């Protein structure tokens, strides 16, 4: 019996020690690599939600994931530290950019599609337009051009390669090769078939990249863009083409921007509120349950330390709602102790000795502690899965972790300390 107690005490001490180390802002073991993640509403930043138009999509999950990785590439170019990009629901992508203040610049960069179109020769009388040169915008490309139904939407991939000369086998010019998807393949074949010995212009953002003359009908859906000066330029062009193709069209459907000062203030206020709440609960517990109450308060402090360590480890992104969930779980953590102490009082009243009253109090209270907490856990899990993202999810996860840890501290920690004290001479100080 006593051996078991010392064992659980050492487990508690070890868990506590590790948690304290993790909680410290800077540890001698891992420096400051384990950091608390704070939500946008606390540090300020920009949140964008895009909805993908999947009506034309063959493989919706794949397209959505592709869209998300295109967004990720673009966000990386913005140089945001710790951005969060996730798909939510069936067709939405949430982008969180901590620290980004200029919402318009972010939207321009992330949501822009570099428009790639293919144009054929036309005349001024037919309403054709003149366009600049891609590499030298000041230079007007000769000829008049009109749009076709072939666009970058039908582009599958773009790569930079060297074009090999068929006769000599030498690799010479750096080119960008592009591949069309099945729809694009047919359109391209038709376009090249109808425009033999005429030029087809490859136009990016209204500037002509190159306008080769069609020698024969191309049916394999592949083409090369010449005109790059070196492989670097060809690579850049390929990258732009790849990035410019959003796999599916996407619309910006919600945007938020939160100033950093607002977040800092809220963080401070919540922290103060949490401490004051903890203090008031402690006073109540000690006043009402005396020494047992004091032990419960100690368990509560241990609870807070362990929970915060878990938040940092996972890591849980703490938003305002998440902090509210945590503070709320402090209140719930104490509930298990109240249930147990009330039970112990009853056992004592029925004439049991202290040691037995403690053991039986815990045993009898356990079923109601378990059942009642399980219903809260159930609610948290439903909230977590249905909410998809955002503050509700943060709230659910912090409350869930809080409840689980509280089951450990309110039961194991309080029980171990109480039983250890009751087996010594200090026993007479225990009051419930």
């Amino acid at each position: 019996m006593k051996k078991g107690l010392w064992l659980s005490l050492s487990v508690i001490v070890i868990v506590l020690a590790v948690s304290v180390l993790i909680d410290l802002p800077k540890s001698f073991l891992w420096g400051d690599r384990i950091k608390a993640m704070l939500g946008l509403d606390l540090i300020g930043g920009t949140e964008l939600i895009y909805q993908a138009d999947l009506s034309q999509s063959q493989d919706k999950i794949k397209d959505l994931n592709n869209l998300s990785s295109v967004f990720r590439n673009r966000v990386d170019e913005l140089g945001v530290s710790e951005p969060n990009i996730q798909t939510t629901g069936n067709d939405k992508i949430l982008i969180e950019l901590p620290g980004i203040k200029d919402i318009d610049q972010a939207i321009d960069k992330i949501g822009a599609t570099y428009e790639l179109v293919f144009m054929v020769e036309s005349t001024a009388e037919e309403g054709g337009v003149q366009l600049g040169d891609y590499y030298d915008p000041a230079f007007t490309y000769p000829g008049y051009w009109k749009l076709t139904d072939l666009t970058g939407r039908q582009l599958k991939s773009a790569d930079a390669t060297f074009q090999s000369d068929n006769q000599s086998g030498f690799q010479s010019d750096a080119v960008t090769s592009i591949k069309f998807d099945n729809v694009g393949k047919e359109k391209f074949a038709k376009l090249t078939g109808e425009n033999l010995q005429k030029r087809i212009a490859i136009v990016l953002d209204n500037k002509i990249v190159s306008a080769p003359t069609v020698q024969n009908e191309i049916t394999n859906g592949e083409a090369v863009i010449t005109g790059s000066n070196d492989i670097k330029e060809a690579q850049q062009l390929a990258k732009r083409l790849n990035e410019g193709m959003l796999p599916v069209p996407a619309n910006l459907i919600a945007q938020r921007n939160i100033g950093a000062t607002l977040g800092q203030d809220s963080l401070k206020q919540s922290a103060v509120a949490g401490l004051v709440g903890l203090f008031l609960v402690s006073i109540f517990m000690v006043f009402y349950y005396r020494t047992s109450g004091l032990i419960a308060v100690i368990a509560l402090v241990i609870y807070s330390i362990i929970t915060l360590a878990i938040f940092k480890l996972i890591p849980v992104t703490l938003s305002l709602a998440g902090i509210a969930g945590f503070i709320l779980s402090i209140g719930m953590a104490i509930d298990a102790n109240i249930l147990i102490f009330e039970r112990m009082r009853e056992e004592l009243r029925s004439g049991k000795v202290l040691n037995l009253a403690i053991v039986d109090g815990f045993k009898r209270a356990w079923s109601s502690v378990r059942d009642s907490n399980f219903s809260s856990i159930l609610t948290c899990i439903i909230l977590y899965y249905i909410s998809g993202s955002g503050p509700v999810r943060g709230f659910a996860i912090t409350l869930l972790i809080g409840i689980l840890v509280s089951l450990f501290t309110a039961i194991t920690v309080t029980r171990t300390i109480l039983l250890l004290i009751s087996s010594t001479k200090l026993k007479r100080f225990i009051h419930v």
Partner: protein
Amino acid sequence: MFNIIKKSNYWLVFSGILMALSIFFIAVLGLRWGVDYKGGTIIEATSADPEKLSSIESIFKKKEITGFQIKQASNNQIIIKLPVIDNEKHNELTSAFKEKISDYSETSYSSVGPVISEDLTRRSIMAVILASLGIIIYIAYAFRKLPKPLSPWRFGISAVIAIIHDLLITTGIVAVIGYYASWMEIDVLFITALLTIMGFSVHDTIVVYDRLRENFLHNPHQKIEVTAEESVNQTLARSINTSLTVLVVLAALFILGGESIRHFVLTLIIGIAFGTYSSIFVATAILSKWHAKTSR
């Protein structure tokens, strides 16, 4: 011992009146739907000169924008509400404001399109329905070994009636507060609060149920009303103390916490107070009446 179950008719009538009043207030006053659900744009901005902030209204009038609402949040802060606008319009407005107010600074901006709000409404309704079903099934399962004539389904259904009671009254009070206070908005956090209240309400109810089961097993031939009365009285101190500690923490959060979660915290305070009340005065009372009727 308090005569709680014995006088349960009074409590049930009281609760019935409160629920009827809540439905009345929700129907007549309506709820203050936030941007999350309604869609729209909110701009929060500051300037050191409150006089100048009030001139923003004239800019809207000049630009012939309708459907806007401007509210002075504090001395140097205003909150502007608009229908959904695009980025160009937003830029245009910002530069117009800056022209008039030199130290105009936007502290927060959010714009939510109708797609998001529809999605959110669907998810919220789903969450409430799923959580209710989950709770009925869970209680029926947790109390499955009850001896006859007790029915585990009646335990579950009585608990859910108590939940509906809590949610309805909370929403009713929120409707009344929202009628007077603009910060009491229905947003995602409100739904979160409702779901938390559900969890708490069941939490409390299960503690009483658990005691009822224990007492019943101990003395199966006693009248159910008497057993229920005993159980409620035995768990009363615990119910009150638990709620008190949670309410103390929430009160601290309400008074000291940030303004942006004030509506959330207040909703929780109302709901948890009624959740404790209903676990004793509604759930157990209905359960006891229901079984007493059929056993006779």
